[in-house]
């Protein structure tokens, strides 16, 4: 590659790393349709590398929640935001780094490991607040640092099925 989508400006690169590991890098605008394209491209790349269905479902959901949070909360009301994803493929897990240049993540969001409260009554069911819960449930070794003007979120996605050796 690199491959670039001319409609939404998604750039994808696969980089060979030492010890038979591969890194996928993708840079895209923090806008809903570009996030969609980035997810489709990333998942296509991971499936080509032998990722199984269950792992693909989990990975796509985690990525979607992380990217949507950035589009909505790091770059509120802005159309010039950029997201960078680096995915390091190891045999049984993905090491993910997501970088953006938006507003810092409030500490309380990262602690959001509980489901939003609900008393089971339809009228009071929560319509939001599921994002961080899903991210925390489906990832491990989550860390967040503010580096200069950038947010850097690191986490791992454990895979149930080993991916093809490179």
């Amino acid at each position, binding site marked *: 590659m690199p491959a670039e989508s001319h409609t939404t400006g998604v750039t994808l690169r696969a980089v060979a790393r030492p010890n038979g590991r591969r890194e996928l890098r993708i840079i895209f605008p923090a806008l*809903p*349709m570009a*996030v*969609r394209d980035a*997810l489709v491209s990333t998942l296509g790349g991971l499936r080509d590398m032998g990722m199984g*269905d*269950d792992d693909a*479902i*989990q990975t*796509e*959901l985690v990525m*979607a*929640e992380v990217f*949507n949070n950035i*589009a*909505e909360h790091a770059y509120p009301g802005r159309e010039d935001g950029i997201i960078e994803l680096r995915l390091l493929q190891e045999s049984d897990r993905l090491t993910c780094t997501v970088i953006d240049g938006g507003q810092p993540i409030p500490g309380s969001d990262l602690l959001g490991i509980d*489901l939003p409260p*609900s008393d*089971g009554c*339809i*009228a009071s*069911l*929560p*319509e*939001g607040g*599921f*994002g961080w*819960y*899903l991210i925390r*449930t*489906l990832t491990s070794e989550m860390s967040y640092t503010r580096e200069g003007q950038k947010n850097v979120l690191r986490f791992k996605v454990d895979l149930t099925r080993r991916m093809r050796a490179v």
Partner: protein
Amino acid sequence: MRLETESTPQTLVVRVLEDRLDAAVAVQFKDAIRDLACDAPDRVILDLGEVMFLDSSGLGAVIGAMKLLAPRSQLELARLNPAVIKVFTLTHMDRVLTIHTDLPFIPPVPVEDRLHAR
């Protein structure tokens, strides 16, 4: 947002003709349901058979749709793909919503009722 509807006096089937119900279309989806809500029958079945991916925004929109329809109409879900059912299971929303594997059988309107309706 492409939706297709099919109705009988008691049931409205809303088929989502999108392969993703996500942050990019969540608001449009909720708006479309709001338009249908005022004269919806008792039972509304949301057929998600075409939807291959749903995120928390899509989940929020489905819950929002259920709240817009209640208490007059009850929203049920049908034909959820594995990626979609996973979101409902992880968030425990599968305990709150009625979820059908297949589109439930909707009895045709009996002939005598049709005559009465005229």
